């Protein structure tokens, strides 16, 4: 795959939580997606050695683990930033200006969708509908939903401000 404005190499994290996650599921292939969900949530991405551990524990070939890890959009095999900005590009958001928001985030953060800022501060992602269509266009920055945004609101979202602050 193409070399992007890649995140700097960060050391592999401590994998102890992976054992704890694996202990909570039956050790079969059926658990694979659910285990990867938890690993992805714990580390914000899927560390390579964690995938090896999961493969060995569930008795699934590493290639198949990798195939699942790259098939589903929820998973990232690259480390992601502290704040993940997810721009909803569902239909309702699209026609209410989501593409303009994408352009503005790209301009302000200096990264494209799918990339992480060099300081590991932000990861920019687009998602195909978060189901909050009535408040389109929607951006989720970290845990927070922002609705009804216009391009001029983008700097505030990046700085973590919202209406009720």
């Amino acid at each position, binding site marked *: 795959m193409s070399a992007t404005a890649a995140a700097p190499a960060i050391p592999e994290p401590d994998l102890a939580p992976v054992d704890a996650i694996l202990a909570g599921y039956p050790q079969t292939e059926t658990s694979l997606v659910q285990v990867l969900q938890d690993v992805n949530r714990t580390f914000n991405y899927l560390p390579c050695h964690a995938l090896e551990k999961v493969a060995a524990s569930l008795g699934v070939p590493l290639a*198949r683990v990798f195939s699942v890890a790259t098939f589903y*959009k929820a998973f990232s095999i690259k480390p992601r930033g502290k704040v993940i900005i997810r721009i909803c590009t569902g239909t309702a958001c699209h026609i209410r200006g989501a593409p303009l928001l994408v352009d503005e985030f790209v301009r302000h953060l200096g990264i494209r969708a799918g990339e992480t800022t060099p300081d590991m501060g932000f990861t920019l992602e687009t998602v195909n509908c978060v189901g*909050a269509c009535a408040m389109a266009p929607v951006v989720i920055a970290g845990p927070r939903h922002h609705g009804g945004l216009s391009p001029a609101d983008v700097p505030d979202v990046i700085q973590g401000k919202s209406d009720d602050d």
Partner: protein
Amino acid sequence: MTTSLPARFGVPQELEARCARLKAEREGKRLTILVCCGTGCLANGSAKVADAFARELHARGIDADVGLAFKRTGCHGFCQRGPLVVMMPDETFYQRVKPKDVPKIVEQTVVGGKVIATLLYKDPNSKQRITRYHEIPFYQKQTRVAMRNIGLVDPRDLRDSLARGAYLAVAKALGAMTPEQVIAEVDQSGLRGRGGAGFSTGRKWRSARAAPGERKFVICNGDEGDPGAFKDRSILEGDPHSVIEGMIIGAYAVGAHEGFVYVREEYPLAVENLGHALCDARAAGLLGRNILGTGFDFDVQISRGGGAFVCGESSALMKSIAGMVGEPRAKYIHATDRGLFDLPSVLNNVESWSDVPVIIEKGAAWFAAMGTAKSKGTKAFSLVGKVKNTGLVETPMGITLRELIFDIGGGILNDRPFKAVQTGGPSGGCVPAHLLDLPIDYEKLTEAGSMMGSGGMIVMDDRTCMVDVARYFTRFLWDESCGKCTPCREGLSQLQIVHDRICRGLGREEDLPLMERLGAVMETAALCALGKSANFPVKSTLQYFRDEYVAHVRDKRCPAGICKDLTIYRIIDEQCNGCGACLRVCPSKAITGKPKQLHALDQGLCISCGACFDVCTPMNAIAFDPRPHAAAVPPAAPGAAPARRNS
């Protein structure tokens, strides 16, 4: 919130008695305050409103008032006006409530019994302030079946659902009906799959019951990947017990003892509330071994999706539950014979499951009395896009698009002209203005070149470019295609290249028939429903809005002013009053000017986003023209389709 669970119900009669008692208890309340805590209202800050209520009621020492109840509920549907607060039994409806309004509400309404006019909903058309929930036009025409409890119950409190009669249908089905009778009732109700395909639920159950094998499954499809649809999310978040109840009845009917709910990863609150509801139901003896002492065993697990649209397709979804990559398979083998783990499985949509208990309780005839000849009952829609009242709506089948968009939806945003409504998700189509009086049911939408899908209704005005919409869906499906079969994988790539070319002003007239030919091949040869219908957005826009395509390819003009490479904006000097509205919304600082003086637009800085045009509604002092020399736009990079995400 503390929840003291009801003790385990040993027999159906215990449940019935408890439901009646809880109902009477709740009806005896002087006042119940409902604060909407659905995803929409939460985003607007309803958690802080709910906290403020809790604090204020506590501070005034009335939180323990026996005549008062305070609840955090699921979505009331009218997300646009959130945060919403409803006071029962008077149905006083407050909208856009801020935490600072709460002391006033407690003082004047809760204690003083007076209505605060400024917090009431003001009908944009009649300019009247409306006090009660059901008098608001958005709610007036609705009939809520699948969404019957949402907004009225606290999804984290089983007792609340029981007071609304939850699980009474389980008591009836398991206690007094044979599985065959349950299937016959569902069959006669005319219920068809609410995920969009519209297959008869009764027939599906009958096949699964007849399929040989001891081990069978019932599955709830909560993958709701259609962009623009969010009814399933609201049901799972706001009333998970209705879904669980439907699944118990379905499992009993087909002879299954294991169930799965597949929920999208993007719906964390749904996963949380459903998980909570499952624990409560288990503790009350409504799930697990020997349900209600009837000897029937059944339990449900949650399976979280990984964010793949194709997993809404039944065979892909079952693979995903099994921990595999969600690739569909050919459908000559039915899931009712060989589904999950190659065993007989019944898969229904969240809304279908939620409809089932009502059908069992009120009877098939009651349900079948609503709707049209072939589409019975009610249907939930998410009404979104360029419409004044966005939100979730449930009406009997057969309501016309006009009633839905203009009566319930209140018309088009900023009173612009209506252009189309997109229904059925990415596999649906765009229905144009001359079909506004179409009654909505499965057949009529299909005849119009669209489909029911999961009930997304995305309203479009004259500022929506139909070529851009078709390009959007093509890109969406290209991104979500699993890539297994060639017609879908390559067909979508090619359709996307052609659309990109047209939107950049490099289209050719022969591109139009080319897209039609490509689409025909995909429709015939693709493996699953995603691929077979992937050309529908292109097909329907070419059918109804061909003139827009022609304007793009022949005149290099985007009639809606959306395609940036074909559009430039300018200020009409005579009409500008220097109000500064455009200047404030311009993200690229291309507009300058002093207050009350003529503003100027710097073409060098302008990014053609059109934000200025959309705010200059009173003066109409911004106009757009075709970009000169549009053909000079450099061609897209080789392999014009953008790179797939590589993480």
